[in-house]
Structures are given as structure tokens and as C-alpha cells.
């Protein structure tokens, strides 16, 4: 299924990408699984999305837990903890 990915702030800079359209394998059906899936892209992804790192996720513009289920057409965003205005 096709989804939209977004990255913000330090994560966006580290990965060198602000967003993309992605075709997700059928077995990647949760936010947590997506994060693990992206780590396999290489060292930069491994580091930026490392397990021990505080990374927040939003699903369709609402904060989402790793267990949240992804559906086709969803917008998934990864970003560091917010630091306010």
C-alpha cells in the first residue's frame, strides 16, 4: 500500500529528506514496524531511527503509538520531541 512519509527538524536534516511517497510491503502494518523497516535503508537511517532514540510519530497528524495501524493513503511523520515556540 502507498503511504506518505514526512520528517521534521533534526531528523529531516540527518536523513536529508523532508518527505516521500512510499510503497509499503504488506507485512509492515504498524508505525513501529515502519520505523524498523526504514532502519534497513542504511547507516543514516539506522542512526536516526535507532531503537534507543526518542523519536515521535504522528499518524494522519495525530500523535501515534508504535502499535498504531497504518492504512493505505495514510500520512506518517517522524520527528524528534517537540521543543516549543
Amino acid at each position: 500500500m502507498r503511504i506518505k512519509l514526512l520528517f521534521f527538524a533534526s531528523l529531516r536534516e540527518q536523513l536529508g529528506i523532508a518527505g516521500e511517497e512510499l510503497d509499503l510491503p504488506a507485512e509492515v502494518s504498524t508505525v513501529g514496524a515502519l520505523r524498523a523497516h526504514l532502519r534497513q535503508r542504511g547507516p543514516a537511517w539506522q542512526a536516526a531511527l535507532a531503537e534507543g532514540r526518542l523519536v515521535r510519530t504522528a499518524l494522519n497528524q495525530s500523535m501515534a503509538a508504535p502499535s498504531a495501524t497504518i492504512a493505505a493513503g495514510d500520512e506518517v511523520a517522524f520527528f524528534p520531541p517537540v521543543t516549543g515556540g
Partner: protein
Amino acid sequence: MKISVQREDFDCGAEIEALARGNPRVGALAAFVGSVRDVNEGAEVGRMTLEHYPGMTEKSIGAIVEQARSRWDVIDCTVIHRVGELQPTDRIVLVAVASGHRGDAFAACEFVMDYLKTRAPFWKKERTSEGERWVEARSSDDEAAERWQEVK
């Protein structure tokens, strides 16, 4: 209810005027204006850049304003938050709440501000004498409170 995330500066006086104008039910208006300081946690700060998540930021502020309305007597509310490049003394944010009663106006205004400062999707990058740095989320309390949002 007016919610705006914008690059442009805003006019506090005009916004406050617009909020209360001619409504005889409004007895109390509490407002907060945040601006860029030249220090943060000891380090001198020059310019800074505020990034946000277009769409989600506005939506989440809207949700918090609705929550404030359900908890307190809120007749009207304006939230303006700037993004982009800012420098010391620049205005960042305005929250203004019109209410029948001063306790409600203060509480709702502070509630929305607390949200903007700790939960809304904004990220701050500061240019200090030692170069640029993304500001780190501060309090471990806060991280604890947000643990449910964490992706492990």
C-alpha cells in the same frame, strides 16, 4: 476562534481589539505575548529558526482551544504563532482569550500557552556563538508525561 501559524509578524493591539470589540458579555481578556530572548539556558542566542508540521500544528492547536472551551468560560480566542527565521526581540506567539470572568480568561490562556510550549509540533534551532544547534527537549518530567507517544 482564530488560529494562525505564519511567517509574518502580527499586531498585538489590533488582535486584542478584534477579539473583544463590542461584545458586552466580555468582561475579561487575558493575553500572552512571547518573544525571542537573547539568552537560553546560559548561552547567547542570535537568530533562531522555528520549524513546524504544517497542518498538524494548526489542527492540534485547534483541538487544544476546543479543550479550553470545554473547561472554562471562553467567549473567543486568538492564537497566532510565527515560524521561520526570528531574532531577539521578535514576537513569536500571541494567545488571547476573551471571557466573562478573569479567572477563566487567565486559566484558558495559560493552558493554551503551556500546550504550545511543550506539546505543539514546533522545533527550534538556535544560532549561538558556538554555531547552530537544534534545541533539545528539556524536562525529563515532560518526557515521562509523553512516554505514551514514544516509538521504541
